[in-house]
Structures are given as structure tokens and as C-alpha cells.
């Protein structure tokens, strides 16, 4: 082996060692900077959340009491005014939302994953639009709901289910995308096993694909719902503006309001009592949100561990 060769071989080995090591190239400090940056972002997000919670807790604590949920909102009895109508309104809207968005979203996901031919232009067009819809600002859905659901063809009026439908449009893309991910994660071998035994496509989907996908679908749906429960802007447009002192009469009759709208109502009033009430409402809403997200994370962890 002559000298030049030896140098080349050594150089090559050294290069490989360096590539594998990373420390000698200044790779380490770049990694450190990046890490610091990531932690910095995380801290910002966390501190913001903490600030909101602390701020709301400190201000709203005096009004975290039973009256908050048992009493109707009132401008006269400021000290004991509650938000029962908003709590019931939120329940109505969310129930209407769930029974609407879950069947539609899951069906759409099944169709796109199991039946649609992904090479057809119209299937790709639908897929693209589902993704785009997920990025549309919620106020646009509010305007849509006002024009087509409250008025227009559906003409439901300003009832709880009009709010449900509007929010359904808003979170439908999220539910579809989450369900598709969950369905896609079901191993092909399971489908083959079932079809190979002479099961029909529907039997296969119903007995194997959906049960395996349920945890993912539930997780995605809960996260979508927790977005919907905090929405204010679109609901302001479809009728949840009124200051109501009674619970909704049903999904299709009677005025309604929801938690974030009620909070908004109070927060803009000058009296201190109402501001405290608003803070108490925020605590309530945050608590519901955290519970929903915890359930979603719990389900996800439970099934990723078992799988």
C-alpha cells in the first residue's frame, strides 16, 4: 500500500468516524441551540397556559360555588347569578354535535379509506378539500351557518341544533382526518384474514376494522369536540347571542346560549361582580376542556400500550 492510498483510507475512516461521532464537527453545539429553542417555545406555551389558569383562578375563586351551576344568569342578583342556562345550552349543542358529526365523519372516513379509488381525480379533489376545510377560520362557518342553517334552505331559526350543525361543519374535517388515520393504522393482515375466510367487505369493516380503529377515532373526536366547546365566534353569528335566563326547550326550539358566549357577555360588563363571574366561567370551561383532553390522552395511551 503506498503512501497516498494510506492517507486516503485513513481519511475515509476518519470521515466515517466523524460522521458517526458528531462532536468533532460542531454538531453538538448546533444540537444544543436547537434544543434550547424547542424548550423556549415549550416554556412560552406552558407559561401562557399557567398564567391564564392562575389569573382566572385568583379572580374567579370567590364565585366557584354551587350558585354558578344552579342559578340562571341575572343582572339583578349579581352576587348569586349563575350560568345554568349556558351549561345546559352547551350540553344541548354538544350532544347535537356528537350525534351529527360522528356518523358523518366516520362514514366519510370509511368511504375514503376502504372504498374510494385514490387514483380518481374526484376522490383526490374531495381529500384535498377536506384538508383545506380544516384550515378555514371558524367565523366563515358562522356566516355559512347563518345563511344556510339558521335562515336559507334549512331555516331552523336560532336554536341549539343550528349551533350544533354549524360546529359540525367546523370540526367535520378534523373528525374525518383523525378517523382516516385510525382506520389506516389497522393492519392489512387483519383485513386479509377476514376476507380470506369469505367474509364480505362490510363484515370485515364492521367486525374488525372499526373495532380496531375505535380508540383512535374516539381520541380524535374528543380533541375535535374540545375545540368546538370553546368556540364563540361562529355561535355568536348563529344566534347564541341572547342573554337567556332559561334552559333551551329542546334541540329545535327555544333560545340558547353556551359557556364561552356567556363568559363573553359578562366579561364586557363594567361591574366587578360580572367580571369575577366571567373568571369563574373560564375556570369551569377550562376544567371541562382539561378533562376532555385527559380522557383522549388516557385512551390513546391505554391502546398504544396494549397494542
Amino acid at each position, binding site marked *: 500500500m503506498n503512501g497516498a492510498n494510506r492517507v486516503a483510507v485513513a481519511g475515509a475512516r476518519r470521515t466515517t468516524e466523524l460522521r458517526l461521532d458528531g462532536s468533532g464537527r460542531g454538531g453538538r453545539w448546533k444540537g444544543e441551540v436547537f434544543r434550547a429553542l424547542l424548550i423556549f417555545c415549550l416554556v412560552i406555551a406552558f407559561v401562557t397556559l399557567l398564567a391564564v389558569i392562575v389569573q382566572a383562578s385568583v379572580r374567579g375563586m370567590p364565585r366557584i360555588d354551587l350558585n354558578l351551576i344552579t342559578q340562571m344568569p341575572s343582572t339583578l342578583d349579581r352576587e348569586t347569578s349563575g350560568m345554568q342556562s349556558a351549561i345546559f345550552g352547551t350540553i344541548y349543542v354538544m350532544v347535537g354535535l356528537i350525534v351529527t358529526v360522528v356518523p358523518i365523519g366516520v362514514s366519510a372516513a370509511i368511504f375514503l379509506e376502504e372504498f374510494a379509488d385514490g387514483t380518481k381525480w374526484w376522490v383526490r379533489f374531495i381529500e384535498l378539500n377536506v384538508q383545506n376545510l380544516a384550515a378555514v377560520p371558524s367565523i366563515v362557518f358562522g356566516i355559512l351557518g347563518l345563511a344556510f342553517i339558521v335562515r336559507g334552505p334549512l331555516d331552523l331559526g336560532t336554536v341549539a341544533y343550528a349551533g350544533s350543525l354549524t360546529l359540525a361543519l367546523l370540526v367535520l374535517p378534523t373528525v374525518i382526518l383523525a378517523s382516516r388515520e385510525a382506520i389506516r393504522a389497522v393492519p392489512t*393482515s*387483519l383485513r*386479509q*384474514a377476514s376476507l*380470506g*375466510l*369469505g367474509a364480505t367487505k362490510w363484515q370485515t369493516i364492521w367486525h374488525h376494522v372499526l373495532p380496531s380503529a375505535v380508540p383512535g377515532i374516539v381520541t380524535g373526536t374528543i380533541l375535535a369536540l374540545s375545540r368546538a366547546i370553546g368556540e364563540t365566534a361562529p355561535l355568536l353569528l348563529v344566534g347564541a347571542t341572547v342573554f337567556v335566563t332559561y334552559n333551551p326547550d329542546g334541540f329545535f326550539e327555544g333560545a340558547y346560549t353556551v359557556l364561552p358566549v356567556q363568559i363573553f357577555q359578562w366579561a364586557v360588563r363594567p361591574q366587578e361582580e360580572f367580571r369575577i363571574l366571567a373568571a369563574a366561567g373560564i375556570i369551569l370551561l377550562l376544567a371541562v376542556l382539561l378533562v376532555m383532553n385527559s380522557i383522549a390522552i388516557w385512551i390513546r395511551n391505554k391502546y398504544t400500550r396494549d397494542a
Partner: protein
Amino acid sequence: MTEPSVTHPYTPQQELPDHPVPVMQTRSLNVFYGGFHAVHDVDLAFGHHEITALIGPSGCGKSTVLRCLNRMNDLVPSARVEGEVLYHDQDVYAPSVDPIEVRRHIGMVFQKANPFPKSIYDNVAYGPRVTGMKVDSMDDHVERCLRGAALWDEVKDKLKESGYSLSGGQQQRLCIARAIATEPDVILMDEPCSALDPIATAAIEDLMLQLREQYTIVIVTHNMQQAARVSDRTAFFTARPDETTGNRTGLLVEFDKTSTIFENPSDQRTEDYISGRFG
């Protein structure tokens, strides 16, 4: 690789006819994946109560041919099949034929054991339930199938436990029990032992020889000794590169009694492959 401790002797059928009495047949079978010609002109006959082995190098289309026999290739959107696949003189690719019905007569066992995430009992009972098969007692039927798959003694006390709780070899036998539960005529097995140790492999090979009494079996295997040990007839495939495109199209080189293929092949390519001179 260590030689498996073979518990069963090589047992060719004594009165193996020169030509199979076919339960299934392929005639000029050609398979395409999109524009890719995967398999060219395959003519095979799978004899009544015989085990037929499909061997050949990787990518020569053994699995493709196997999947055509019960129309599992329908699941691949780009796959296109030309020629005929006959099951008792009925073309399974005829427009009037329902692939679901085909798969009820022609069962399949896959390379990787794929039990359902259900109990052992439900795994076996699933096929009869969804196909609406009439059984006098499902308990008896499940027992019969598990016995048929040589698994009963190992699982009889834990039928309610998940199929995943079994070992790999047991899972594969569960899949065989599940496949025979719908009482098919033909059982297709795609490298059923490739993920198993020699002992589990020997158990499955024993099982295949027993199952031959009742079923017509087609098995794909990379294990030459396995083909020699269990099969009555062997089909050797290879892949030939296309001169213009360089795509490797699979074709059938030779199909004969297993003893002939292994001891006295008529094609040089077969001999090279059998004797290990060609990957």
C-alpha cells in the same frame, strides 16, 4: 441453518397418478400489476387430495399465482388477471362469480400468523358465523377444527383467552384451524412456516400431511426440504428479465411429481436451483 428434527418420514402418496385429477387449474394465467407483467402463462393443475408446492426464487410470482386462486389479488387495485382459473370447471374470474363465494371454498393461511384480536374460540368460530354456515353445535365444531389443526390439547383450557396469547407456531395452527372451520375444499398456504422454529415447522408439516386426507393443499415455500418432505407435486418458477424494459416476469419452468423434480428434473434451471447453484 440447522436441519429441523424431522419427526415424520417422507410420505409420498403411494398411488400418485402420473397426472393430477385436478380440483383447481390455471390456464394461460397472466398477472399484471399496473403495466408490470408479473406472471406469464402459467398452466398448473392442483390434484385432488394432493399437496402441491410452489417453489422458486424471490419475486418470481409464487404468491401472485397463489393469490389468484382464491381471488385475494382483487384486494390489490392495480392487479389485473388474464387467462382462466378453474375450480371444478368453473372459472373463478367469470363475471358472474362472487369472490366472497370463491373464498368460502378456497381458504388461505398467510405467511405471518394473523389471528384476530379475539378469543381463541371466536377466532375459529368467526368463519362459520359470518358465512352463515349451519353447524349443529358451535362448541363441537370449534373443538373439531382445533383438533384438526393439532392445537386442541394445548388450548382446550383457555379457549376464552386472546389468540394473541399463543406462541407464533400455535398462532399459525390457530389460523389453520380458522381456515378449516369454514370447511373449504382447497387450502392455500403462503410460506406458512417461514417465521417458525424447526419444531413448530415440523408440527405444521405433520399437520399438512394429515390435512391432505381431506383437503387439496397448495403451499408456497422457500424451504426446499419442506417441499421435498410434504408435497406430492412441485412447480418450479423463475423470473426472466424482459430484454427491453428489464422487468422480471415470473414464469413456470417445470411442474411434475416432487420426486421427479428433486431427483431427475428435466430442465437445467430447475436442477441449478434445487442443487443451490442459483439464488
